[in-house]
């Protein structure tokens, strides 16, 4: 459920801007792919046809319209039927989909339509449909749950029958990524006729994707039928069913009995049991899932760096990574996920990471010393909310509370729902100590720092905005090459690791279970949410 919570958060906009704002041009600077390793390898080769494949997602698809339900499981489901304006490849680069794009200047994106794209009803895709598919998320009166991703869009206009021009209020190098992940292509006439029912069971939508929707309900799931006229080629599976299984153990047993053929986002805490399935292959992918401890630097006791250092010294991150994630996570070295460092800096990534100041080591003695130097030498008491849908949070918080007790700090762990946890991150009356999870969908190492640090950062939970940090975050935000990024990134990450407004905790993997009757051609990618994933799957032969 951890993944779900993170992408739910992404979808509902709490981390929206953080995930995308400030990132570079879709990973064009990348030099290597995201790492992946298969827990068990199958000798089968793909290419075979599939009669029916059933995939399970861990939360119900509440709408087939991403403007209403943009949670990750729903995005995966919607992308079976609806193309995006652009797409991502396995390395996170932005590639053409129903349109290709050019950026004649930093505030203009010109989208050019393919000639051969048709909706399931046979009508050709028009520039008006593409403009509508973006425009519905744009503007102050848009009630789209994805509106926050398109806040930098000034206008979307049809410039000729094959061209749509997106004008931006300010340079937004992440916009192509947003168009690839969030801008689902829907037929304007269908949606207008459907009105408020668009996306619901009666009027789920008209798309151009590889599958049309046979039936949909949030209770029973979705049945898709192959679109033989798909512009991207004929998919291998005739029929796809997507069902909801919220309990991962039920999903594992369903996988074991062969009732489902695949399950996205297996909780890392449960992967040992999943690894033992003899009719499925687990794929583990390094990606941009990051966990942090945030301390509000604008409020006591964390307006004092020594109080923050005391807390940072209490966390044995390396030791905790193994039991909390079954070894499928590593202690983070900075705010930036490892995969972004590798894709951005290539062979230089190790050297750049080594240049970051280290995160304070685990030491009760040093924690005591730091607390003694702080304005609260006798300790303090505060709450720490843990999202019950993210299994790592509660044990980590309990561990921290136990360690804190030894130096006179009382931390009360408060289990809360995912919604309450997300709301608490932005609630000024909430505890100044917060656990944070983020998902970063791009390949650019400059993506997260400027949205987590600095006065302009929309996701600055720690409210860390010193003049130096502001300047460095600003420099990172405008950097477009790894050479421009390197110096301010090293300086800001060192600043953060030294002054610890955030303690970077873990960089998690993503786990996906795929039945042995199927082959994910090219291997599962962390960037699959930005792809038409069913096109990557064929029958094992």
């Amino acid at each position, binding site marked *: 459920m951890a993944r779900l919570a993170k992408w739910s958060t992404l979808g509902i906009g*709490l981390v929206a801007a953080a995930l995308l704002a400030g990132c570079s041009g879709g990973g064009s600077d990348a030099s290597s792919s995201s790492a992946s390793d298969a827990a068990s390898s199958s000798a089968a080769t793909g290419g075979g046809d599939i009669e029916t494949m059933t995939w399970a997602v861990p939360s119900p698809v*509440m709408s087939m319209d991403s403007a209403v339900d943009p949670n990750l499981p729903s995005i995966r489901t919607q992308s079976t039927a609806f193309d995006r304006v652009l797409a991502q490849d396995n390395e996170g680069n932005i590639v053409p989909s129903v349109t290709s794009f050019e950026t004649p200047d930093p505030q203009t994106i010109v989208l050019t339509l393919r000639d051969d794209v048709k909706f399931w009803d046979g009508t050709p895709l028009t520039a008006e449909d593409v403009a509508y598919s973006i425009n519905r998320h744009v503007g102050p*009166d848009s*009630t789209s749950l994805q509106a926050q991703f398109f806040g930098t869009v000034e206008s979307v206009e049809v410039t000729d029958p094959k061209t749509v021009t997106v004008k931006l209020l300010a340079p937004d190098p992440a916009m192509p990524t947003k168009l690839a992940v969030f801008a689902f292509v829907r037929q304007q006439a269908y949606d207008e006729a459907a009105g408020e029912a668009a996306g619901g069971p009666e009027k789920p939508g008209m798309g151009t994707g590889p599958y049309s929707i046979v039936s949909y309900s949030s209770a029973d799931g979705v049945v898709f039928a192959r679109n033989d006229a798909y512009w991207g080629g004929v998919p291998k599976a005739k029929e796809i069913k997507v069902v909801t299984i919220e309990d991962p153990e039920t999903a594992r047993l369903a996988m074991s*009995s062969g009732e489902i053929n695949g399950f996205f986002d297996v909780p890392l805490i449960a992967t040992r049991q999943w690894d033992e399935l003899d009719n499925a292959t687990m794929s583990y992918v390094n990606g941009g899932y990051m966990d942090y401890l945030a301390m509000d630097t604008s409020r006591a006791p964390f307006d004092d760096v020594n109080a923050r250092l005391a807390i940072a010294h209490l966390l044995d991150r390396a030791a905790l990574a193994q039991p909390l994630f079954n070894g499928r996570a590593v202690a983070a070295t900075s705010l930036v996920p490892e995969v972004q460092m590798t894709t951005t800096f290539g062979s230089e990534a190790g050297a750049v990471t080594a240049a970051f100041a280290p995160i304070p080591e685990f030491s009760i003695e040093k924690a005591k010393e730091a607390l003694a130097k702080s304005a609260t030498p006798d300790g303090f008491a505060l709450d720490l909310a843990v999202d019950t849908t993210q299994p790592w949070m509660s044990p980590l918080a309990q561990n921290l509370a136990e360690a804190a007790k030894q130096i006179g700090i009382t931390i009360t762990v408060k289990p809360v729902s995912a919604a309450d946890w997300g709301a608490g991150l932005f609630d000024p009356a909430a505890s100044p100590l917060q656990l944070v999870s983020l998902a970063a969908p791009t390949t650019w190492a400059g993506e997260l720092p400027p949205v987590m640090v600095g006065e302009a950062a929309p996701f600055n939970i720690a409210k860390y905005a010193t003049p130096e940090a502001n300047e460095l975050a600003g420099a990172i935000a405008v950097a477009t090459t790894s050479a421009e990024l390197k110096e301010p990134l090293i300086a800001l990450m060192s600043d953060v690791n030294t002054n610890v407004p955030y303690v970077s905790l873990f960089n998690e993997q993503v786990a996906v279970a795929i039945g042995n009757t199927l082959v994910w051609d090219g291997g599962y990618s962390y960037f699959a949410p930005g792809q038409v994933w069913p096109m990557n799957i064929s029958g094992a032969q």
Partner: protein
Amino acid sequence: MTLAAYALRRVVAIVATIALLSLLVFGLLALTPGDPATILLGPRSATPEAIASINERYGLNDPFLVQYGNWVVAALQGDFGDSIRASEPVMSVITSRLWTTVWLALYAFIITVVVAIPLGILAAVRRGSWIDRFASSITLIALCTPAFAIGFLLIYVFSVQLDWFPGFGNGDGFLDTIWHLTLPALALATLQIPILLRQTRAAVMDVVDRDYIVFARSRGLSNSRIWLRYVLRNGSLPVLTSAGLILAFSLAGAVLIENVFALQGLGSLLVSSVGTLDLPVVQALALLTAILVLLTNLVIDLLYYALDPRLRRAGAAA
């Protein structure tokens, strides 16, 4: 008092209860911290334009009682508004899950009654025998076993190992639904059987020791007459109460069972709606659940009235 008069009195009480509950349920939105428009917008961007639009659409600028009146009028017509997190009206979201819960509750209830009542009677009649000890043992084991453990055990044995029943999902059509709901209903019944079994055993044991039973035997009445006219009839009253509570509990949503078997029923909908602050759905579900429980109680009360002559006499005297 006739049965009709008694029923009428109970119905009036139920209507009054529902009216009071509806006020409380509607007050949920007003009592929830924060601006109702922001809550109704959910995670959508709460721009001033969007908030103004929501305020106008839901009449949030009206006084509370006017808002409540409008909501009641709409609710009476089956319109509870739109779900915040789905492209559907609330009633559509609920009805798509209602039958799963109803079928599950009825199926489990039937299994419970068929197993628990005969076994409870047998255990009472043959007190101290191996049947009694067997009934006590399975009661104890079932009571001590968590619902999710029973669910996973049933899935592992009957779905993964034996491949007799599906391990998750609602099914499609009557027979397929019955097939899909067999394991969840068994799991739910396993939780309910101990309660009804113990209640039946205790009730029957209480009756068979009464003086009027001894007297009936001394009069030479046949065993079947004693059992059917005296023991079972008198023993059925507390059993009926327990059975009614069990059914009401199941209809209110067997959350854990629904979760383990990936059933999209009312219980899982309530949990997810609370978690995502989908208040229109929570309001409607709370009211619907209350109505289901009250109606179940009404049926039990009427059966009580039919079975217990003392109630009828008391009513007539009044």
